[in-house]
């Protein structure tokens, strides 16, 4: 009963498709409409309900912030931007009908963001086939070398993230790592990168173990991990699994638990409260590092981003959104795509798609802009622009990927994320080479 029934969930969604189609009386066959009137819709494709709803919440927050800025600057081509939340529930079987419905029935759905790992492999082809440019935050290694023309990614894939875990642990002086991953999708994606990186730096992996989620006890696993006397735990799991595991670790090890290195996927209020309750605030604030996409809090774009996040009325937990670097790429992505539309004078995907790379990487002599408003003004002045957003300068490779740098963050005593340090992307790539 953990899952909210799917066979019928799917059908229910399907019925909704038909009702929606009937109601709107329009089906544009999944093609980007391009030239239209009325607001341009940004499809935020992510889990709005279900176990991963927190991620969807973060994604939509970034969208609201970007839309606020874009509309304040006068919109795109004189049209307003609007966030259209598409619930993929985190389950491919539900995602397909929901995304199909959104593509078929939403007018002016001209850009998409989100499309995270659980459903990416099934939803990205749909969006790509509809010729809608998208900035995805998924971590699938498969998309390191994609040929999908409308796919763009400014965040690292999971194995790079895994290598970054090790890079951070090494920097902290730890040599013996216990690797404990819950057997869910994101965690399993990180593992190969961790293993490769540990080997590369000549560290010791005391244990490499996959654990089932939400078990009532991990005592035996903990005993096994303890036996290896690790200096650091590279742990990835949902809040409940992590809390249970760490609590048992503490009890069986006389109250001591080595520091944890994990992913920014976990830097959420739910994770904070679950782990704090069993481990205490001191441990959570001092001994946990969350590795993810780097966002420089001192960059000019960040202050604009921060203002927007705090300014958007729909956002309830601005601090969390600001702390998750991956999410900033959604804000950047929307700005980038909106500027590309302006430069192409069209909201049609096939027309403006090619401008995305140009504006992100910049051409010689282009003006560097840090916000949509500045970019729009420069374009109107007839200049070439180079957008440097929260993620910093973006250089897309041939596969539309730009992994960038990595950050390590921690929790403050009140549960807000705080930056601990930066890991250069080059360092991480080296660990994987």
């Amino acid at each position, binding site marked *: *009963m*953990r899952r909210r029934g799917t066979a019928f969930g799917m059908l229910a969604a399907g019925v909704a498709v038909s009702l929606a189609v009937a109601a709107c009386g329009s089906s544009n066959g999944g093609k980007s409409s391009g030239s239209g009137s009325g607001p341009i819709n940004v499809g935020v494709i992510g889990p709005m309900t279900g176990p991963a*709803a927190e991620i969807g919440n973060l994604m939509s927050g970034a969208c609201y912030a970007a839309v606020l800025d874009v509309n304040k600057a006068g919109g795109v081509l004189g049209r307003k931007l609007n966030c259209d939340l598409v619930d993929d529930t985190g389950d491919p079987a539900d995602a397909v009908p929901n995304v199909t419905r959104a593509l078929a029935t939403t007018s002016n759905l001209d850009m998409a963001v989100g499309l995270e790992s659980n459903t990416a492999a099934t939803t990205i082809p749909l969006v790509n086939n509809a010729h809608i440019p998208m900035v995805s935050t998924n971590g699938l290694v498969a998309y390191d070398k994609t040929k999908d023309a409308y796919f763009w990614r400014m965040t690292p894939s999971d194995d790079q993230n895994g290598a970054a875990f090790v890079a951070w642990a090494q920097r902290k002086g730890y040599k013996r790592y216990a690797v404990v991953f819950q*057997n869910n999708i994101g965690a399993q994606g990180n593992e190969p990168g961790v293993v490769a990186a540990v080997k590369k730096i000549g560290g010791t992996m005391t244990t490499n*173990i*996959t*654990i*089932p989620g*939400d*078990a*009532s*006890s*991990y*005592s*035996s*696993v903990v*005993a*096994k991990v303890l*036996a290896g006397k690790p200096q650091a735990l590279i742990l990835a799991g949902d*809040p*409940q699994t992590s*809390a*249970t595991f760490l*609590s*048992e670790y*503490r*009890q*069986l090890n*006389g*109250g001591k638990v080595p520091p944890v290195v994990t992913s920014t996927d976990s830097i959420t209020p*739910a994770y904070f*409260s*679950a782990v704090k*309750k*069993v*481990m*205490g605030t001191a441990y959570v604030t001092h001994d946990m590092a969350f590795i993810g996409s780097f966002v420089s809090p001192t960059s000019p774009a960040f202050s604009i981003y921060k203002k927007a996040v705090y300014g958007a009325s729909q956002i309830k937990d601005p601090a969390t959104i600001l702390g998750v670097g991956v999410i900033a790429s959604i804000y950047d992505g929307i700005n980038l795509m909106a500027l590309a539309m302006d430069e192409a004078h069209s909201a049609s995907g096939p027309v403006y798609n090619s401008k995305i790379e140009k504006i992100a990487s910049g051409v010689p002599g282009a003006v560097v802009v840090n916000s949509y408003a500045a970019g729009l003004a420069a374009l109107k002045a007839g200049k070439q622009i180079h957008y440097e957003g929260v993620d910093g300068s973006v250089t897309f490779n041939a596969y539309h990927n730009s992994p960038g740098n990595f950050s390590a963050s921690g929790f403050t005593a009140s549960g807000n994320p705080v930056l601990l340090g930066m890991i250069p992307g080059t360092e991480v790539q080296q660990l994987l080479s």
Partner: protein
Amino acid sequence: MSVLIEAIGFGIALGAVIALGAVGFTVQFGISNVLNITYGALLTVAAYLGYYLLQLGWNVWVALAVTSVAMAVLSVIFNRLLLAPLSRRGTSFVGVVIVTVAAGIILQYCVVAVAGPDTVSYGQLSGSTVKFADLVFTTSQLIILAIAVVLMVALHMLLTRTQFGRAMRATSANPVVARGCGIDTDRVIDVTWLISGALCGAAGVALAISTVTFDFTLGPTFLIYMIAAAVLGGIGQPHGAMLGGMVVGVVSQVASAYSNPAYQDAYAFAVLILMLLIRPRGLFSAGTASARRLAG
């Protein structure tokens, strides 16, 4: 060697939780012949009830007792309101299963509506471990073991040493004959549901102590282990369910110590299926099964 002994110890602690729930499940199945999926949601309700009582600053033992009593009453109401009318109407086995699933969904989402979808925790009850030779237990595990041992011994005494226990076993074996022998079967059924509910309450709290952190899916996730334990021991056999719970707990912990922990449940369930191929009616069921055959 010490790895094995340690794992067995952990297995016993885990088995104690499963056994508590499995015994509650099995006595209730024995008397009503209903595969009661709602039991999972009731476990969740118990865990949350315990959580709120602890939030009020109550002592664990008091919270446990109050939760058990509350769940006992709730179980009787559940039976009287929903299951008893269905059995009077002669609804099919699967029809009743569907109803219990539906009731489970209702309860589960009532919990979400009240408590929200986020995880909650009883917090750290204490942080130390206790060693007996090679066996190591955490304090939480000891608390759970204490709950399980006390309740199991009490139930055993009730079943074997009292008039009521005999009446209960008779009703479970054959209600028609039991009624014929002058047993007030309606009362026996009510009291059985009380007992089952109380065990469910205790199991819910024990489960919450064991998992440390939980959310509204707690019960249904663990119901399956309890069902496995109950079937392993022979459905309707409280002693069988105790043993079954231990087997499931120990097998999964030992498996997790010696192989990939991701498969720990798979081993426990595989043991169940193997056992059923050898003894189709569970470990403890020889007596009643043939009795049922005779009656048929």
